[in-house]
């Protein structure tokens, strides 16, 4: 029998038992819908994280104090901090693959200004920081080399700090006092949003590292060194080069481990996306299980259907249907049922992920691969779980089937 006829027979018998077909499909509908929805949310979260990692800076190489073992477990990072401004200077001088280098000192505390109080970290950085982090000012201007040289007490406000302390006025030209040290505000940074781990990057104050070291940190050691490779392709080589220069700078013998860690953006990204990958996988597993349950539902209904339609099977056989014809008829029916469920499920998944995006503002990304896989999987479920009932139907004896009450 031609396949279009088979499909028409299948659709007719599905329509004939509308309510039951819908209930049967429900398992598949929910399963597929869940898969699409979950993957969409997972991918949305992932792309958001990737976005914010990119947002960190340009081809960034990050050097932090302390060793990280090969397993990624930090051996008391920071406890052995020997990172200094001199290291940054050496990197800037000798690093052929680095276009820019900036030391970063971190301190913080109570900030007074504009008649209010606020707590925020204070970063001491070089002028190169603007390019490394791709972080221009919204108003005012970045400090320059002379500010660094003379350790002027100037600063830039993150947009959060600016709006908290100076809600209705332009902060540029005004002052803030950080732990009794007054800083002139020369600019407000553009808003950068949150990091992958959810920190608000705009909640900070930035000043020349020389000023911060001299007036506030008073420490020899710095929190990190940021560098920027010339191009994304240069990043791995730049990391190697930085390692060599750093070992030299710290006069490490061959047998000594690094007392610093060099990482890049994708290392940071991997750590952040790792968790969402696990989430996506978990959700997909749950969705897969519901598809399985949906498949069992289809098998159950197909078995009932075969029993219920024993006489019909007998009639078809009596007028010349081969066992293979009956097998195919029931197989096509369960496949049509499951694909129909799959299609409705995809629609539901689309709607669901749109709703999630609408309600939470998370970006969701419908993955065409996921749609294809879900539909393919539901068809497979139909074949797999439809086969046994179909074989049962095909194996019926025509006489016995015709006599069946």
């Amino acid at each position: 029998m031609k396949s279009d006829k088979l499909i028409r027979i299948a659709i007719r018998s599905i329509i004939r038992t509308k309510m039951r077909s819908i209930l049967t499909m429900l398992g598949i509908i929910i399963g597929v819908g869940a898969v699409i929805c979950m993957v969409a949310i997972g991918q949305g979260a992932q792309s958001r994280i990737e976005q914010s990692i990119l947002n960190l800076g340009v081809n960034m190489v990050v050097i932090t104090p302390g060793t990280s073992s090969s397993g990624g477990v930090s051996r008391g990072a920071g406890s052995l901090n020997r990172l200094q401004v001199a290291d940054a200077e050496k990197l800037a001088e000798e690093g052929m693959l680095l276009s820019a280098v900036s030391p970063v000192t971190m301190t913080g505390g109570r900030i007074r200004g504009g008649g209010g109080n606020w707590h925020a970290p204070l970063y001491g950085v070089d002028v190169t920081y603007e390019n490394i982090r791709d972080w221009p000012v919204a108003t005012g201007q970045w400090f320059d080399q002379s500010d660094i040289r003379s350790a002027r007490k100037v600063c830039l406000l993150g947009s959060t700090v600016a709006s908290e302390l100076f809600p209705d006025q332009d902060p540029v030209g005004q002052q803030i006092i950080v732990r009794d040290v007054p800083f002139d505000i020369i600019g407000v940074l553009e808003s950068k949003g949150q990091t992958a781990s959810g920190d608000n990057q705009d909640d900070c104050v930035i000043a020349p590292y020389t000023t911060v070291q001299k007036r506030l940190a008073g420490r020899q050691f710095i929190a990190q060194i940021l560098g920027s490779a010339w191009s994304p392709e240069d990043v791995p080589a730049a990391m190697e080069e930085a390692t060599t220069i750093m070992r030299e700078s710290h006069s490490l013998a061959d047998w000594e481990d690094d007392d610093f860690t060099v990482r890049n953006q994708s290392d940071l990204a991997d750590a952040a996306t790792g968790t969402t990958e696990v989430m996506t996988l978990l959700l997909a597993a749950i969705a897969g299980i519901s598809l399985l349950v949906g498949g069992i539902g289809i098998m159950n209904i197909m078995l009932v259907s075969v029993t219920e339609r024993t006489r019909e099977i007998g009639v078809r056989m009596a007028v010349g249907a081969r066992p293979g014809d009956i097998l195919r008829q029931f197989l096509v029916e369960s496949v049509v049922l499951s694909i129909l469920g799959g299609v409705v499920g995809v629609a539901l998944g689309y709607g669901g992920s749109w709703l999630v995006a609408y309600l939470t503002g998370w970006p969701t990304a419908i993955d065409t691969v996921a749609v294809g896989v879900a539909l393919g999987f539901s068809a497979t479920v139909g074949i797999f779980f439809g086969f046994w009932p179909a074989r049962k139907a095909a194996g019926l004896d025509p006489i016995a089937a015709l006599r069946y009450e």
Partner: protein
Amino acid sequence: MSKANAVITLRDLNKTYAMGRNQVHALRGIDLTITAGEMVAIMGASGSGKSTLMNIVGCLDRPTSGTYELDGERVDGLSRKQLADIRNNHIGFVFQSFNLLARTTAQENVELPLLYDRSDRKIDPVAAAREALERVGLGDRRDHQTNELSGGQQQRVAIARALVTAPSLLLADEPTGNLDTQTSMEVLALFQELNDRGLTIAMVTHENDIAAYARRIVELRDGLIIRDEPVADRRTAKRGLSSSVAV
């Protein structure tokens, strides 16, 4: 009775059912030849083996032993698939209980065998079904659902379904068993008309009155043929007024 035009040839046909430890010998050594153009009534008491015989002849069932030649070809021992093709191409079967598909129109019921037609005859199902329905006088009931038809009409749809593949043999197991006298006559008239145009027919019946419309009577008792004789005074059924048809 030349062997050349024998449609059915049964030799020493046996059918035994195993019922637990007992064995039921439904047929025990049937020898029977039916030639083209015959109209045979198969009679006998209840349980004498009429349906069993009919099912084997109709290739719905297989004999336990013995040989069965249909149109000169051995069909005992064929596979389920091959039997299905023979049922489709060579045999039309009419049941006592009609056996139409429910919630399906007359037209679709009659088209059904052609869905499974694998011969290279290339019959157009829609046209052939329409023609077969017209032949049984139901041209105007084509789009009626099975449950919207009377018993007699349903049986005629079943006959149309049996005829649609242009079989060489029409088998009927108590085709009038569920019908009143009037509609029985209509069915018999149809059978006679088909037989007059050359179709070979074998039908099971309990009633002498019905058998009298056949050309030959074969009677069974306990799985054996005890009588096989031509009908001396064959009756002719007239179609009722309600179903006069242009053939």
